[in-house]
């Protein structure tokens, strides 16, 4: 190892320990990198080289993985790493001014580490605390909710006096569940083991039949029939089958899974165990998004209790040969890992790039094993179906969209939080219940979903009308919908995995156009180009991220066109650069600054 690049003194020992803890398994690389960073604060190159050597990989391969994840750092980021949640709902609550204030108080520029190496302040994608924002993430571990000027001022003082985060006021770390309307999922809590006992009494085939009878569709957004997915996996040949719970709740504006995991973890794990019963899996994973690191210990404690009470482990509930256990894998800041094949790549210790499909995970998933990947809420529904039967579930909601759906309501309303309704509920009803007034628009399903304007509030939540993965962001008439769309454009560009041309370059080009419009330099031509990019990305991308990246753009241009046209400088072409500024070098060289050395603003 080179002396010049010598890392933190204990980095070497730390890397060795991490390697040993994971049995030098290259599939655990993302976990190793997270753990190494948790100790070191960042990932020194020599330590990466040590991991590479221990895992039989090249340094470039390890660096390639580490640099993929937004929460892993190849350069020092300070003793304190402060990340402001940058969802539009945080912005509505004033996050930008608070971040500017913190930066000013600490004397650091956004995204830069101060000269003393003490602190860096930056933005991150939505932290899933939209109903109690503005929020921030500190050292990729704790979250702070309900930020205001006084918390920011105190925080700056605590950081400057180097007070450890664990000694900060505990009220700052309070995360509330805010369940506003409960139905069959958020109502009565599960008595651990009862749903599983019901499933065991039915047996795997009959349990699968109940799931199919229920017409349950995946709650992650795509709405694939859960019974069909499980049957495909069950029938797929393989030495081993795998159950994965997708808890990478990254869609901005969605936070229902956070509450389900915090308050109903038994229901989630029980649903997964029923999945194992049906598919014959012996191993399960929860892919928990890095932003939810703070609930890891509580989840581990629930798993431990379930093992102790024979709800996990060997011979579950005394049924000989029914073995299943669950491990939690922490993500590291990558929205695309919510896509199931990208999630599996990440689980295997690689960059979270979506796979070529088919084959689908149900046939060829984790390490090639048949794998079911389901949303947190889907597993919660499964345990209810085990208890009450498929016909009961199918009797709730609409014919094509059975059961209930949990909505994460945030934005301009009096009572943000979780609202559970049967499918088929009117948008307007949800707006009334949450105390939304003078509503201009609702973004249903997050940025990749649909933006509805007032004339559409009679539409209903259902796969056959307005499908949703759970986000419900409300905007009143004071909001600029162009700025909302611009925020989403930045989100997609930030989260693109970079694999395919149209998404990698297209999302960056969209940002350039939107920023140009925001700077007041736009013309009709720019809107035409945005339409062109939208059309291309809808058909040509490798996965759904790119395909849906222009959805907010398309909806807002169509429905709120005046919001865009307010930003147009002219109806004709406008260059993306400032002609007069381009002359500044010539002015400096000639020593001129008279009127003739300036580009006269021509009348548009």
């Amino acid at each position, binding site marked *: 190892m080179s002396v010049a690049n010598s890392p933190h003194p204990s980095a070497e020992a730390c890397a060795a320990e991490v390697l040993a803890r994971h049995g030098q398994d290259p599939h655990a690389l993302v976990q190793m990198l997270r753990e190494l960073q948790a100790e070191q604060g960042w990932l020194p190159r020599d330590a990466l080289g040590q991991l590479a050597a221990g895992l039989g990989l090249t340094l*470039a391969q390890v660096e390639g993985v580490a640099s993929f994840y937004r929460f892993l750092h190849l350069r020092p980021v300070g003793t304190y790493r402060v990340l402001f949640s940058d969802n539009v709902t945080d912005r509505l609550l004033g996050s930008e001014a608070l971040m500017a204030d913190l930066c000013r108080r600490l004397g650091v520029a956004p995204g830069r580490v101060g000269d003393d190496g003490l602190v860096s302040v930056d933005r991150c994608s939505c932290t899933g605390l939209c109903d109690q924002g503005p929020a921030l993430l500190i050292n990729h571990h704790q979250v702070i909710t309900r930020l205001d000027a006084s918390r920011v001022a105190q925080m700056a003082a605590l950081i400057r006096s180097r007070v450890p985060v664990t000694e900060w006021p505990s009220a700052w770390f309070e995360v509330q569940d805010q369940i506003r309307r409960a139905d069959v999922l958020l109502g009565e809590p599960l008595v651990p083991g009862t749903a599983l006992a019901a499933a065991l009494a039915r047996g795997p085939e009959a349990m699968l039949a109940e799931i199919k009878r229920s017409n349950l569709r995946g709650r992650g957004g795509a709405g694939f029939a859960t019974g069909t997915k499980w049957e495909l996996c069950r029938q797929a040949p393989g030495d081993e089958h795998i159950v994965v719970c997708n808890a990478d709740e990254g869609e901005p504006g969605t936070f229902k899974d956070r509450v389900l995991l915090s308050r109903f973890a038994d229901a989630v794990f029980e649903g997964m165990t029923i999945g194992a019963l049906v598919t014959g899996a012996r191993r399960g994973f929860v892919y928990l998004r890095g932003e939810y690191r703070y609930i890891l210990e509580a989840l581990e404690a629930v798993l431990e209790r379930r093992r102790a009470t024979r709800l996990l482990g060997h011979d579950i509930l005394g049924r000989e040969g029914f073995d299943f256990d669950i491990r939690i894998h922490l993500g590291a800041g990558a929205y695309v890992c919510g896509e199931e094949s990208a999630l599996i790549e990440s689980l295997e210790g690689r960059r979270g790039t979506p796979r070529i499909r088919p084959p689908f995970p149900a046939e060829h998933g984790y390490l090639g094993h048949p794998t079911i990947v389901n949303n947190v809420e889907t597993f919660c529904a499964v345990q209810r179906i085990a208890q009450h039967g498929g016909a009961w579930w199918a009797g709730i909601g609409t014919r094509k969209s059975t059961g209930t759906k949990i909505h994460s309501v945030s934005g301009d309303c009096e009572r943000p939080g979780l609202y559970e309704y049967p499918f088929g509920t009117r948008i307007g009803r949800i707006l009334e219940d949450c105390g939304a007034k003078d509503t201009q628009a609702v973004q249903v399903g997050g940025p990749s979903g649909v933006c509805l304007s007032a004339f559409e509030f009679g539409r209903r939540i259902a796969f056959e009308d307005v499908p949703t993965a759970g986000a419900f962001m409300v905007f009143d008439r004071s909001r600029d919908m162009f700025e909302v769309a611009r925020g989403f454009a930045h989100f997609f560009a930030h989260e693109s995995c970079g694999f395919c041309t149209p998404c990698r370059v297209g999302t960056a080009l969209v940002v350039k156009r939107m920023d140009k419009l925001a700077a007041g330099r736009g013309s009709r031509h720019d809107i035409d180009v945005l339409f062109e990019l939208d059309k291309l990305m809808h058909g040509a991308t490798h996965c759904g991220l790119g395909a849906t990246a222009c959805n907010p753009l398309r909806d807002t241009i169509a429905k709120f066109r005046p919001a865009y046209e307010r930003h147009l400088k002219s109806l004709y072409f406008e260059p993306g650069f400032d002609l007069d500024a381009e002359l500044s070098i010539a002015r400096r060289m000639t020593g001129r600054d008279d009127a003739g050395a300036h580009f006269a603003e021509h009348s548009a």
Partner: protein
Amino acid sequence: MSGPTLPEGEDAFFTLDGEDLRFEPGDTVLQAATRAGRYIPHLCWHPDFAPHGSCRICTVKADGRTAAACTTRVTDGLEVESNTEELNAQRKTLLQMLFVEGNHFCPSCEKSGHCLLQATAYEMGMEGPHFEEFYPDRPVDASHPDILLDFNRCILCELCVRASRDVDGKSVFAIAGHGIGTRLIVGGPSGRLGDTDMALSDRAAGICPVGVILPKRRGFAVPIGARRFDDRSAADEVQEEPTCAPGRSQALIPEPAKGEGSPASAPGRSQARMPEHAMRRMAP
């Protein structure tokens, strides 16, 4: 996913732009089309490697649904549209995206005339960048005695990553970063090619479809008129030599004979005529 099975001994057919073509079981659309001597524009696909699906240039409509031809399996009766105004316009836009993302100055690039990106852009009638250039700042790596790396031209096809890992067994290259910051990186403690065991005879050294991986001291050795795409276009290549298609000549032309018997490096290619499409230069 898979089409109806056919009685044994009967050929299976699909249609490409209205023409019936045979295919082998397991073929992707791009494989079957190439075997039949039909050109579907592509950059990241190579017949010797598993499909990758990143450039999206080969996007077609298969039974009306857009899909990458390199990753879509052919099924009996599948109707594929490829050479349509709409799809070619989309390809041109994707090519323009690749051009503005990197720094592609064809007139001064020694890969000019051998470059699949340039040839495909000609093929799709691309006349300008359309979008504003990103002008990324990517230093070149000249640390290796025999090979120069100019990352400015990388289109992230990962052919070098795959060749180095799967054929050479060296894993010299990897992909790092994300989004528009995605980039090709080199292994070894310093991250420079000179510190790796890469050799000019490696498969990875000759696989780059654009001008990133270049052998030193051979720049502009082939005169204009004798370069890979001077004589015939990217489409002509596939039509004239369907069975081996692009595989043979991805390697930089002036490479010393390696006994691969690659038809493209065989003598006898016209050196006199400079066709119209080679006269047009990409604007810097």
